[in-house]
């Protein structure tokens, strides 16, 4: 049986998740040149926020109607944590050497993990996340789980909304201006502090949506899930060209598909029997990243948002 469509679908769904998280890395980097390594944890708390909302809902509440509420819950938690991090951890360090906020981000990431581990009920092990029951849907030779349609729909919708926001609204244009030259932007009357908070908030909201997708996809959320997902999303952002929002989504999808294909087919390549399978997929993903960076140091789509001369 030909499993190619299935592997492509697997990769696409995973890639959509990476892409949504990568938006947060790329937006923050585009505007303040900070790699927010705590973003993976902001994604993680979003998952727990959504789970909390679900647990509050009365029994027998249909999952389909619960999802919008869960998204809202996740977004509230993620955005609160993300903006608080900006306000209390990163803003005091603005103007400090680059390494200071970077280390802070790593510290913050450990702090958030441990906080969830310690205080969220029974979060010392993975918590069950609600999932859709029912048979998968068969399209184009691939079986798609019902829960995965969430990501398939959410990713393009979010991208459209973001593109509209950045290009058409006043704050969005302010964001572009701040990315190009924060000092001049300030002189032109743009409240750059607000713009930076917005960048963090949007990134966090997208991460929360990705976290709901993660929960529906994997059926569980855990306090450690942010680390590896954050790392992959960061890779996706770099792959697509950090600072570029379209690049982040493209990078995510390329990465997801590359991983799925490496798992599925690398072992079939003559001479590569040893290097195939699930354990090596990360190696291939990073090999791809290195290759892209060698040929195109600015990433697939270059730095469009943070275009500085």
């Amino acid at each position: 049986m030909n499993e190619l469509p299935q592997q492509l679908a697997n990769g696409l769904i995973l890639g959509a998740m990476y892409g949504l998280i990568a938006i947060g890395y790329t937006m923050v980097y585009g505007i303040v040149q900070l790699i927010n390594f705590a973003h993976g944890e902001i994604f993680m708390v979003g998952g727990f926020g959504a789970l909390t909302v679900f647990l509050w809902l009365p029994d027998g509440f249909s999952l389909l109607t619960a999802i919008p509420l869960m998204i809202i819950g996740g977004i509230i938690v993620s955005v609160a944590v993300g903006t608080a991090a900006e306000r209390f951890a990163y803003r005091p360090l603005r103007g400090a050497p680059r390494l200071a906020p970077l280390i802070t981000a790593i510290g913050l990431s450990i702090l958030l993990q441990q906080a969830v581990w310690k205080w969220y009920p029974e979060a010392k092990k993975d918590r069950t996340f609600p999932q859709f029951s029912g048979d998968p849907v068969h399209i184009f030779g691939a079986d798609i789980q019902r829960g995965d349609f969430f990501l398939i729909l959410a990713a393009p919708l979010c991208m459209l909304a973001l593109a509209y926001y950045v290009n058409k609204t006043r704050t969005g244009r302010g964001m572009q201006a701040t990315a190009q030259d924060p000092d001049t932007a300030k002189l032109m009357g743009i409240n750059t502090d607000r713009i930076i908070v917005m960048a963090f908030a949007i990134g966090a909201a997208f991460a929360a949506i990705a976290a709901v997708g993660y929960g529906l996809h994997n059926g569980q959320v855990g306090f450690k899930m942010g680390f590896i997902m954050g790392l992959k999303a960061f890779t996706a952002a770099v792959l697509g060209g950090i600072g570029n929002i379209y690049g982040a989504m493209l990078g995510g999808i390329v990465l997801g598909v590359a991983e799925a294909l490496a798992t599925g087919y690398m072992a079939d390549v003559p001479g590569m029997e040893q290097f195939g399978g699930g354990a090596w997929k990360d190696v291939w993903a990073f090999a791809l990243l290195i290759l892209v960076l060698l040929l195109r140091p600015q990433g697939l789509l270059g730095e469009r948002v943070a275009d500085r001369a």
Partner: protein
Amino acid sequence: MRNRSALILTTVLTTGALTLTACGSRDKDKDSSDNGGDKTTVTIGFDAPLTGDLSALGIGMRNSAELAVKTANKENTVDGVEFKLQPLDDQAQPSVGGTNAQKFISNKDVIGVIGPLNSSVSQSMQKPLNDADLTQVSPANTGTELTQGDGWKKGDRKRQFETFFRTATTDQVQGQFAAQYLFQKAKIKKVYLIDDQKTYGAGLAASFKDTFTDLGGKIVGTDHVNPEDRDFKSVASKVKGTGAQAVYYGGEYPAAAPLSQQLKESGADIPLMGGDGMKSEEFPKLNKKAEGDLATSVGKPVEELPSAKKFITEYNKNYKENMEAYGGGTYDATWAIIEAVKIAVSENDGKLPDDAREKVLASMSKVKFDGVTGSVSFDEYGDTTNTMMTAYEIKNNKWESKFSEAYKPR
């Protein structure tokens, strides 16, 4: 101002350090005289991860060890001896485990150590404890080489450390038993093999593979996964095309649960089988399609053993944390040391011998009792002689025992 606080801090630290050093040298005299004369305090060291993501297992172990110590004191198991537990946290890190081993060695009251959970941590504790003649009983280390050396696969078995014992069965026994069950009882001839590349998972998978192919079964494919991953869709899609009738997974439940679910969602409606690391009550909770999945575990099902019943009631009365997979084994490990102390004391006219560590170690080979997991005693490698294995299957979202056997390793 700053100078003064630095001074105070230094003073406090120095005093603390001095007090600690002083303790080490006169603990023994103090305890034997202060405790009302007729009771000698004996400390049992305990090491496991009490923080971090394996802490659920570690805390279950600590509670069980504590329960054993309390029970021994209450029932006055060893006349004239009061047991005390000294639990230390190793954070699942070998380096911390090594430091903890040194702490146990320097505390003269410690006559035995329970733990740790991780084989890698054990490797950093075995040597120092062995040099100090300090008995170590691990309830959870399953790596075969820990007792029998790296040559065990070729039949070249050599005891590694005189002081190391365990109540856990080796990966070798468990993998073999699983292979036999799957081939002979479940009539499955084609298996896809997956492991998580950790010592435990890879060991299980290797042992399973050898036996399964020996019996005439066919391994239709192998893969390795990252235990931190939760997305195994690509691997699952691959399994589907191979015609495998089951998947054997060497690893633990956090990854096994989504793997099993995604396997079935991908259309390959075949069971996933694993070892005791998968036989957790969390597994069916995290896996919506767990029905029919299989696991092996050490010992008979607890409902069938009267000694286990008492342990479970007592445990649930005293602790709110789950005992998890190694609770019973830890109780037995602790009890084995208590029994060894009892033998050492009775051979020394009812008093704790002066060379207590050596005597307790010498008594370990004579220990034999009915514990929570079955009959407990140790063979010439320090491995448990209890090879009672049970295969479980998920029925109505719960592990249900299918088949028990005193398994003889091949």
